Every structure is written in C-alpha cells, then in structure tokens.
C-alpha cells in the first residue's frame, strides 16, 4: 500500500508502518528508541499487580498523564 489516508493526526501516529517481516523487529526496536528519545517518559519503579485489564489500562493512563504533566515546561511567574 503506497498511500495511506487518515482522518486525524492521532490515527496517523498510531498506524503501524508495513515493512518486510524479516527485519521487522529490529526496525521496531529502533523506532521505539527514537520514540523514547523524542518523548521521554518518567515511569515509577517496581511491580504493580492488577485484577483486570481495565485496572491495568487505567494505571497506564495515570502514569502517561503524570509523565506528560512533568514534561511540560513551567511558565515563569509574571513579573
């Protein structure tokens, strides 16, 4: 598929890129490394346990929100 169409930026960002399967994992690892460099996250440390996937998903979103909040530049107070 030479051209893919997207209705939103979010849809485009999430769409997987199709590559030959032979080197797919190494490309995936490089892609993640770039992503982590561009958008560094701050994760907690350790082990967390969940009864359901919904619980796990909610925790993931909380961590992502905290991380995003931390990465935003602080505005200096108006003088």
């Amino acid at each position: 598929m030479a051209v893919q169409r997207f209705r939103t930026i979010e849809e485009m960002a999430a769409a997987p890129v199709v590559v030959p399967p032979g080197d797919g994992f190494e490309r995936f690892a490089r892609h993640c490394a770039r992503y982590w460099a561009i958008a560094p996250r701050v994760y907690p440390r350790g082990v967390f346990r969940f009864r359901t996937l919904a619980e796990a998903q909610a925790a993931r979103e909380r961590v992502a929100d905290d991380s995003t909040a931390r990465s935003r530049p602080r505005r200096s107070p108006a003088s």
Partner: protein
Amino acid sequence: MLRVLRAFEQEALEYVLIGAAAMGFHGLVRATEDLDIFIRATPENVERLKRAFRAAYGGDPNVDEISAVDLLGDYPAVRYYPPSGDLYFDVMTRLGEVASYETVAAETKEVQGIRVSVATPSALYRLKKGTVRPLDRQDAEALRRRFDLKEE
C-alpha cells in the same frame, strides 16, 4: 529489549510475545512503551521469569515482588517497571476467560540469534479486535489487511 528476550531464552521461560513487539516481528512497526507477554501459569515458570528479569536488570530487588500466588490467583496481570526506565513489561497469565499462554497460537521467530515465541498474526488479531482501546482496534485492522485475515 534484546537483552530481556535473550534472558527469557536462557531461562527457558514459557511465554508468548503479544502486542506491538509481536506485530514488529510480523512486519507491522509502531512504537510502544511496553512489552506484553503471556506466560504459562505455573510456579516454576514464574520463577524462570523472575530469574530472567534479575539477569537482565542487574539483580533488581523489585523483581522479588512478582509472585506466583498473585499471577496464578487474583492478579493475572503484573506490570514491571525495570530500573532502565525506558520501557516496562505487562506480564499476564490470562485475559478474561479465554486467552492464556495455552490458547494463544505462537510461532518461533529469531532475532540476532535469539529465539522468540511470538503470537501468530491471527492470534494477535483475535486478541486485539475485541479490546476497548482505539489503538488495539487499529492494530487489528492493520493485521487483518496485511495478512488478509477474515473478519470475525
């Protein structure tokens, strides 16, 4: 990532890789923050997992908090954030009533000499199409198109 996959192999962990990393093996590349795996739900296998994490992450003492009692009991999903801080692991023994290590079809792939147990495209499709995250539904659609899978 490769260091952990190598440790899984060295410890003979019984696992199957799902999620975005598995999609990468099948040639569908997108970034992710986590590695998702199903493991066989036995106390021995949970010990293998812990040994592999310790080997990969310099004996991180947090690994001791991973418990077979949890994973085989009321907490079938455990998230481990290693000290490297660059990614995390979602380890599952079952997903709802139907998905587990035993029910997810897998094939062996190889990367840099490491043998990796990876969910097949159709198994990934089945796991992803029923979930609530838009991202998963998008993955399911990409898998269906790429591998000409029948819509279920």
